[in-house]
């Protein structure tokens, strides 16, 4: 499905252009941020609707609470901040004010994963899947390209309830064409295959796709699934993948604990046990480096993923995996 791997897009652009389009049609849409107008690319929004950009300053707890209050007052707030601070600093507000109250708040975690690269672990957000996934009632979406980002933002604006959009600034190629229809909770098979399955989302989807092309050269046909929605998770697609291909590799710009791989493992062991390999940040605080550098380092280059898949392929059906 990916034809041009070289033209890369910052999905924040699709995020804000979609948000601005929606906001021009629905004046209940407001943006809330924490001194993050620039990093959330909200400059255009601010210029068009200065009063509808609620910048609370560097105060994430207040930011999320304000979002919940705006929702109570009939607004549709898009609360935009670096994902690490949004989720880490305001998690109890996300739990109580948003999830438990079921407030119509759209949490937009910008620069998630290791997008802040050299700024280090305080700025890495490789825990946010684990932190939010355990909270009931929040739809969690990590789009993989501009077109899916657009769909996810439109979904968020129209869905009545909490949404967490996990966005990145790391360049990705186009995966879907521009009239792709995003459906929350429904994963997309972006490459057919019967030998094993690679499941990814966000910035990892195109890497997974490339890995599958490498595998094809070695005679292994990998199914590639883009699982943008982490919660509620698409059980049917996971079960089909497990039963039809017999092995699953997951890749995510997140810790190997508690994220996408973990969510899929929960389904796999309870419905259709097959061997898996969970790729991600392996339980360490990352050293200095850019996101792409670190992803390669942690075995998530196209080659790294294909090697892990290759190994798993030969472990299919084994009871004990070395």
């Amino acid at each position, binding site marked *: 499905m990916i034809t041009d791997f070289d033209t890369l897009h910052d999905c924040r652009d699709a995020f804000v252009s979609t948000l601005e389009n929606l906001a021009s049609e629905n004046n209940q849409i407001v943006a809330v941020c924490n001194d993050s107008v620039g990093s959330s690319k909200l400059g255009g929004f601010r210029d068009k609707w200065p009063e509808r950009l609620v910048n609370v300053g560097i105060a994430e*707890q207040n930011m*999320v609470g*304000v979002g919940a*209050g705006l929702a109570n*007052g009939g607004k549709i*707030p898009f609360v935009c901040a670096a994902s690490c601070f949004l989720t880490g600093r305001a998690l109890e*507000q996300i739990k109580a004010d948003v999830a438990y*109250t079921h407030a119509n708040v759209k949490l937009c975690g910008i620069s998630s994963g290791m997008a802040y690269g050299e700024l280090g672990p305080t700025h890495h957000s490789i825990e946010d899947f684990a932190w939010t996934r355990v909270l009931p009632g929040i739809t969690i979406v990590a789009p993989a390209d501009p077109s899916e980002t657009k769909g996810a933002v439109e979904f968020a604006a129209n869905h009545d309830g909490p949404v967490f959009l996990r966005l990145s600034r790391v360049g990705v190629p186009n995966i879907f064409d521009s009239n792709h229809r995003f459906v929350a909770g429904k994963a997309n098979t972006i490459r057919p295959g019967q030998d094993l399955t690679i499941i990814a989302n966000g910035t990892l989807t195109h890497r997974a796709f490339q890995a599958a092309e490498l595998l094809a050269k070695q005679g292994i046909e990998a199914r590639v699934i883009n699982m943008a929605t982490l919660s509620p998770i698409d059980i049917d697609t996971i079960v089909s993948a497990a039963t039809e291909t017999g092995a699953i590799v997951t890749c995510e710009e997140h810790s190997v604990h508690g994220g996408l791989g973990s969510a899929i493992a929960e389904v796999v062991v309870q419905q259709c046990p097959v061997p898996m390999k969970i790729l991600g940040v392996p339980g360490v605080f990352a050293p200095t480096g850019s996101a792409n550098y670190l992803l390669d380092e942690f075995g998530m280059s196209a080659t790294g993923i294909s090697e892990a898949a290759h190994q798993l392929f030969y472990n299919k059906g084994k009871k004990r995996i070395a």
Partner: protein
Amino acid sequence: MNIYSCFDLNTADNFCQRLIKLSRKYADFRKALTDTRLHEIICLYIYSLETFTLDVQTLQDMARQIRLDDLKTVYRAKAGHIGGEMSAIDILTTLYFHTLNIDPTQPNKPTRDRFILSKGHTACALYTTLAHRGFIELDELSTFLQPHSRLNGHPNRNKVPGVETNTGALGHGLPIGIGMAKAAQLSGEGWRVFVLCGDGELQEGSNWEAAMAAAHFKLDNLTLIVDHNRLQQGARVHDTNALAPIADKFAAFGWATTAVDGHDIAQLREAFDKRSATAGQPTCIVANTFKGQGISFMQDKVEWHHKVPNKEQYEQAVEELQAAM
């Protein structure tokens, strides 16, 4: 359904005042009326509450009744936060029976005033007030804390009509209140937002983030009421992490501030009536209160934060509250 157009407002006022005086129990009265199917009168009464002023004596009686029902509910459930409930009930009564522009038949009416019980551990006082105000049935109070009851230890918006947001973790109310007040500002609507928080609760930094933003956003439709009972869970506020003088801190953060006797309903009524003490500024009302107010042996005693009275204590408390009525 514009009820006002077909009714003489003065007559309605007198009529309702008299009814209240007679029954002293709004919910019983409401029930009685339902039983005789006088729906129009009920509607009218409810509307009238939004329009007419109950006299101080009537409000005081209501507060005593709410104290009594709160006490009964806590005693029955064998749990609650009775100290902080008693300190807040005069404030709640004034808000719900005088100040707030709300309608129990339309708890989600977009233009309603908003109230947030940020000190959510005193949920029982809120439930009792909501019951007397007609949001839920008085009978339902008996389910407080029972398995699967809507009346949890902390209020839940998705279950209990009249609750605006789920509280229980301290320091969440004021930020949410700012969002509500900002929404009114953005919509050009006139609704007001009231947040009631504990004094110990102000140790949470989230409040100070919010305090800064409220002043910056010039939210003069926002009123924070501090239930200044000088006690927190384990000790005096003063001995834990001194906050006083509270008003000075809010003044330094750009708020208009006033202090009132939090058990003097006339003072509360007046303080709440003002949209803001100063145009363009949010208002902080420091309500000087006593934990356990109204029950002699509980008053100003830290251990009554969440102690439950035994039988003798319960009977004495009932007696004291009834004697005052």
